[in-house]
């Protein structure tokens, strides 16, 4: 479920979840906040707004911070909610190599979490 949330969040969506159990609601709320999203309470629902949401500036990367085509592929797999192990299987590379690519992605994008990496990369993308 968290993977699904992450995937949706990377696509500028707002998600509303109605949770009857107060303890579970609190736990979910913390998870959402930890992932760098915002939580807005509206009629006791949890509304999560993706960090990429909002009217954003087009971000430009310096040449040395450009992702390699392989890193873009790994990022796409992260966006599908895959774990490092699943990414390794999908791309036919070792787990070690995946971790190396993910580290490099985080560094180049200035991101601390997978969600943040997706958000930052989205700011560099353009439909023209």
């Amino acid at each position: 479920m968290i993977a699904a949330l992450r995937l949706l969040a990377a696509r500028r969506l707002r998600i509303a979840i109605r949770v009857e159990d107060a303890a579970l609601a609190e736990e979910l709320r913390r998870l959402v906040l930890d992932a760098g999203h915002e939580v807005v309470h509206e009629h006791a629902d949890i509304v999560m707004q993706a960090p990429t949401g909002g009217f954003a500036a087009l971000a430009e990367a310096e040449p040395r911070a450009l992702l390699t085509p392989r890193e873009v592929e790994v990022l796409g797999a992260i966006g599908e909610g895959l774990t490092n192990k699943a990414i390794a299987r999908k791309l036919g590379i070792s787990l070690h190599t995946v971790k190396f690519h993910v580290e490099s992605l985080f560094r180049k994008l200035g991101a601390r979490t997978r969600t943040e990496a997706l958000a930052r990369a989205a700011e560099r993308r353009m439909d023209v």
Partner: protein
Amino acid sequence: MTTDLLQQFSSALAERASSVQGTVAALRLSEARHLSATLWHPDVAVASEQSLPRGEDFDLVLAGGATVKAKLAGRDPGTNIAALRLERALDFHSPKIGEAKAGALALAFGADGAGGVRARLGIVNTAGPEWASSAGGRIERYIVLDLSLAGAEEGGPVLDAAGSRLGISTFGPRGRVLVIPSATIERVLPALLADGRIARGWLGVGLQPVAVPDALQEQAGQPGGAMVMSIVPDGPAAKAGLVAGDIVLSVNGTPAYRLRRIAAALSSVGSTAELRLIRGGKVLSVKATTEARPR
């Protein structure tokens, strides 16, 4: 008349809120939800495009609670402006246009949904130069406010201390409150009202800047390009023979990873774009003609 400074300040703020009330309307989305809209002309209101659902017909709740029907006249994701035409003109005097200054007081207003006004006080956090949005628009000033805003207040007017209008409020990334400057609204509004949109050149590709693989750098003659991530069937790029996975090196000589310059270079409809690209380890050139972005 009191001489207490704090009371005078407070009265002045409350005075401002009641004087702005006639220019703010609630754009009703459902029984319980609304957005804010700002009257720009007697029969035209503007709102934040990104939060406005699809649809043609909307109800605006005016000051005091009266309702007026409004039709969507046009929307431009590039500058995040939606224009609505009211079914009847209102008695309305447009305030003066103000210029944002960093550190100056800013008042943001929204509609409460029942004919009242909601007010926020903060300062102008950033008053930067012109910028480009990721949706391809040009915005005259980069204005960030140091205040928080509820979702329903987005799209309301933002005033300076003199009561001049800086623009309308909107949300940037991470809930940051931005202002769409009055100058941008004034520039975009006539075309939006006339054509329903702002025509921008379009190729029908999604581009992600990438580093050119080491083995190809010498041949490419540059460190980066932009990979074609998606391509619209029968769009201008598809007609020119581009396929997903191509790495575009340059557009009319501009390196393709410079997205802002690429967006500017493609801004007119019907212009020819010479694309240099890498496909299967070879560098080739294709020509594409920009079209108007479909609705």
